[in-house]
């Protein structure tokens, strides 16, 4: 009788260990691997556009911090991280001279550039292991007024990317005031509040970000 109980206890214990491994350990490690892999493609776009697009690291760090502040579940946070790396991958199909133009873009070029989320999503969509990121990639420049019901993480990416670009090209003051002006029209109110809190806490606010190492990493 003891033998049977002992055997069953060992059996159940090892099955529980297996379940933990399969549903907790492996997904976390796999996510890290995926990030390391897709990071290369963000780098590709960065190289192709002379650093103008595809920049991932500062956006990733801030996006994850804001996502935690908003209380997004782990799954959403992982999708967000992958979307940060994959969002501009469609730029590979946009002509080189448009991406690297030093003079202002024409109307047609601007329209083409505005299609990059769609192109990125169509590339990501074709890969079985990344298909679940495609909707978020498609919506990464979402406008609050047009699609208020889009996922919070999409609104987060949209607002945070604008803030970072403005802060880098102009100043964090301007970036913050533009985000505030856009609350309820271009940007999701809850997201803007969380971003500004996080930026404050990290001490990024009010500094000359064009030269701040934190944003270039």
């Amino acid at each position, binding site marked *: 009788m003891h*033998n*049977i109980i*002992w*055997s*069953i206890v*060992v*059996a159940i*214990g*090892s*099955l529980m*260990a*297996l379940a933990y*491994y*399969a549903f907790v350990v*492996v997904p976390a490690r*796999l996510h890290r*691997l*995926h990030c*390391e*892999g*897709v*990071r*290369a*493609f963000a*780098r*590709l776009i960065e*190289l*192709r556009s002379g650093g103008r697009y595809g920049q991932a690291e500062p956006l990733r760090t801030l996006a994850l911090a804001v996502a935690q502040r908003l209380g997004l579940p782990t799954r959403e946070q992982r999708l967000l991280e992958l979307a940060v790396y994959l969002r501009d*991958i*469609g730029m*590979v*199909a946009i*002509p*080189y*001279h448009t991406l*690297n133009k030093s003079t202002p873009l024409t109307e047609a070029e601007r329209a083409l550039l505005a299609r990059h989320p769609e*192109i990125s999503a169509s*590339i990501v969509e*074709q*890969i*079985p*292991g*990344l298909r679940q990121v495609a909707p978020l990639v498609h919506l990464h420049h979402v406008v609050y007024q047009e699609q208020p019901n889009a996922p919070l993480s999409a609104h987060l990416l949209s607002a945070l990317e604008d803030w970072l670009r403005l802060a880098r090209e102009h100043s964090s003051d301007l970036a913050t005031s533009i985000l505030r002006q856009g609350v309820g029209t271009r940007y999701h109110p809850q997201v803007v509040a969380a971003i500004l809190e996080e930026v404050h806490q990290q001490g990024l606010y009010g500094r000359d970000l064009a030269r701040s190492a934190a944003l270039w990493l």
Partner: protein
Amino acid sequence: MGLASAVLLAWAGVPLVQQHQLGAFAAIVALATAAELLLVRYPLRPEYPDRGVWLSVSTPVVIAIALTYGWQFGVWLDAIISLIAGLVMTQLKGTRPRWAFINTAQSILSAAAAGYTAALLHPPYLSMLSLRSGGALVAGLAIYLLVNTVLVSITISIAESTRLGWVLKQTISSVPRDVALMVPISFLVALMLQLQGVVGLLGVLVPYLALRQAFVIWARQQALYHQTIRSLGFLVQRAHPYTGGHLQRVAQWARRVAERLGLPPERCELVYEAALLHDLGKTVLDERILNKPARLTPEEWEHVKKHPQLGAEILSDTPFLSQIVPWIALHHERPDGKGYPFGLNSDQIPLEARLIAVVDAFDAMIGGEAPNQKRLHRRPLSIEEAIAELERGAGTQFDAQVVDVFKQVVHEWQRQREQHTSKASK
């Protein structure tokens, strides 16, 4: 093979029936078959998933049983497990049913050879706790795996019409590792059977299966991840207006040449991956220059020459691809030192980079690189002309050894294609 195994089965069956142990036997069979079905098999050639050649995971149990209850027991157990699991797999994975029978026959022959050896060294029903029994266990496992590997290799070489020597070199190397992995579990099973009977099996088998399953999950996810990065690289190159569809073809050629050169299987896979990604750096460049039908100006040429290093830079941060980064960076180097970006000599260029250079040049020469565009300064060559061109450059522009092997691979491919078309026309 089928006949020999049928005779063996019948011969082994007689004492089984005489000893009236069918009840215990049925219990063990049920347990071990369940074990086998819970697991994804360990394919010997993962790149050909439709060819169901596998190494059974129930091997340690079979050996332990043979050692405890006699070799006849082991043979029957292995036969039943292989057949049931094989047929279930046929249903689930859509492989052809004959593979289930081939595997069963292989199992029977291996189990008989192993069980018989073990029984010679260590008669059944003796205590497991002796040096002699340990030796019998190791010998049994080693013989099982050896016989099975040789039989499987013969089957693979017939099915894929590859040389037996090459297949054997790939498969036999894992035998010592597998023996080492299986000895402890096999010993535990035998010990449990003796001390606690069939129930004791549960306490050993379930943790073992859990461990095994964990490895399998990880391996499968890892493969999926490789697939992901690979297809992403491929799609990005496709989306770029310049690169045509020649990447997959180059990758397949490259893998075949690598196999023919005798590189280990993991290495061949990496060569495939590297060939698929070798022009990733071009996606960074201005496609107007890459597409330009006229001759390039020196500045434009400098721009194009950056692509191997750009490709390497893109992939340099991805740990699992670190091995292929130098191959990509150096795929335009030449053995005579006139290549770019560094002008290295033959012995400084990795074999894989030299290999990709040959295959890439060949596919470009036959017009595979940009099939939709008319390149004014280049007329597509026929396969014979391209091979002649490679031979002219052997030793200076191209690596002579690689060209030689590549020639064989192309001729073999042509022969196969001819056979195929003649079959189709009949």
